[in-house]
């Protein structure tokens, strides 16, 4: 007896997995598992590179969630990297909270700061919103540069007892940092995927494609954008805490750098593919390969990155992953609800 005959009242069935994505998920699970044992088979410099790759991936996932789905093109995400980083230092060094617990707390503080920040920047639309987020980030930077206890404009190092509290040996500390970074990267992808597969993912995709139509179908567009902004601030704050845990030193210029925490991130998302969960993953890998290849070229490096970004925008506006989807129809993280029609007559 078929399922349809047993449940005649359910005529329509919906599937989200594809054959490719099932194998894709298995391959990715194997890769993540292999990476989890990274401290056993990666050398120190490759582990550091992986940490960097992981937090850039998390930042890129969040920027894609904001811009690709929420229609919120922010150039001020460095605000939440800086807030996460600084509050990690405050919570771990001044409040004596264990460093690994201080990371999520710092993320929460960044999310709390997102609420008043949103109240200001959400009054602005489009390009004005983008500039507004940047200005907000600059304001936060100037405020932290005034705080003497945090070293003012020259910043501070993580006190040695806090560094020891992460782990006793240097090897172990680097392994802990590595695992935290890997967890953040996997967690950020899983968070975005879970969100997109949920009912709210439908609303976000609808907002991405047409805000007026989404509103007339019952989607509270303003609330969805606000929630996305706060979620992105939380994860971006977590990444900020991790970044400065790995660097062991923080300063206003490094913490609130528009170049490091927003410009490169936008580059990653644009070349990988905006509005697709795979885009930031592919973009991060391409970015690190390019950086490795072009490392000796000095300032030409940035010129070449810029040319590549312009080229991709002109030739493949949906990014490299968008190109792959168009050509081959492959998706690693399918979010489409496919309707299967049952023959009941």
């Amino acid at each position, binding site marked *: 007896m078929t399922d349809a005959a047993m449940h005649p*009242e*359910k*005529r*329509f*069935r*919906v599937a989200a997995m594809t054959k490719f994505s099932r194998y894709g998920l298995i391959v990715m699970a194997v890769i993540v598992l292999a990476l989890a044992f990274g401290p056993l088979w990666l050398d120190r410099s490759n582990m550091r590179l992986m940490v960097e790759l992981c937090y850039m991936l998390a930042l890129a996932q969040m920027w894609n969630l904001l811009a690709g789905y929420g229609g919120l093109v922010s150039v001020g995400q460095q605000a939440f990297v800086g807030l996460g980083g600084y509050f990690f230092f405050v919570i771990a060094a001044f409040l004596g909270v264990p460093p690994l617990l201080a990371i999520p707390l710092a993320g929460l503080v960044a999310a709390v700061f997102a609420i008043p920040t949103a109240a200001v920047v959400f009054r602005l639309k489009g390009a004005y919103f983008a500039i507004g987020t940047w200005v907000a980030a600059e304001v936060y930077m100037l405020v932290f540069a005034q705080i003497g206890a945090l070293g003012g404009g020259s910043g501070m190092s993580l006190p040695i007892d806090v560094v020891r509290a992460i782990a006793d040996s240097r090897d172990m500390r680097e392994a802990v940092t590595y695992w935290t970074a890997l967890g953040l990267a996997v967690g950020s992808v899983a968070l975005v995927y879970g969100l997109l597969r*949920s*009912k709210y993912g*439908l*609303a976000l*995709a*609808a907002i*991405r*494609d*047409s805000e*007026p*139509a*989404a*509103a*007339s*179908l*019952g*989607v*509270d*567009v303003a609330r969805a954008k606000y929630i996305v902004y706060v979620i992105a601030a939380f994860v971006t704050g977590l990444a900020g805490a991790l970044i400065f845990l790995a660097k062991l030193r923080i300063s206003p210029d490094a913490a609130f750098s528009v170049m490091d925490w927003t410009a490169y991130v936008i580059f990653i998302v644009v070349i990988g593919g905006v*509005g697709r969960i795979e885009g930031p993953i592919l973009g991060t890998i391409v970015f690190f390969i390019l950086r490795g290849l072009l490392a000796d070229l000095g300032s030409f490096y940035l010129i070449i990155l810029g040319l590549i970004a312009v080229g991709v925008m002109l030739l493949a506006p949906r990014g490299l992953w968008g190109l792959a989807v168009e050509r081959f129809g492959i998706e690693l993280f399918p979010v*489409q*609800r*496919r*309707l299967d*029609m049952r023959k009941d007559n």
Partner: protein
Amino acid sequence: MLIGVENVTKRFGALTVVDDLSFHLGEGEALGVLGPNGAGKTTVFNLITGALTPDSGKVHFAGEDVTAASPHQRCHRGIGRTHQIPHPFEQMSVFENLLVGGAFGKTSGTEHAAYDRCGEVLERTGLLAKANAPAGSLTLLERKRLELARALATNPRALLLDEIAGGLTDHECHSLVETIQAINASGVSIIWIEHVVHALLKTVSRLVVINFGKLLTEGEPEEVMADPRVREVYMGIPAQ
């Protein structure tokens, strides 16, 4: 009375697009709206659905003042609409387009609860074969049907149709009229803006004619169409 538009005025700068306009839609009724291009018909829809708020006057829905409610709140209460220029969610499939309305509209609930209803709406609107196609790949006519299907997926009490018969062949127009009659017969009240007058007259029981944002006349379709003023402003036939 399901929808009441009371002395509503809307200005864009110096231009008064809707001028002290009042009309109503009865429960279960099908009302047609006529008027020359630029008469303010679509603006009236935007005022009823909340895409615009009036400078003065009130909009009532099901006995409540909804003048200050936002579009999604009005959708939750049961106002569904189609757009004159279709706004499909292009990167989503046709079925997913409906799911948005099904999961967030008047009968909002879990996504799963909306699957069957959305499937049935696809059947009723003749889009079932295109269910998994990206909405961006649809032809103009299919996009217009998608507008209708998506609005129906919200399970509305009142459905506002903005020129969905334009550009259809006679046969397509006939099947659209049948679909809309069936929707009306199932208890959904309808306001339909349409230039394809013969399609409109087959469906509606009352007509409202708007000119320069003002109510020109309203009443039984035959009466209204025989009115010399309507013939003059709408069809360019001089009154004498």
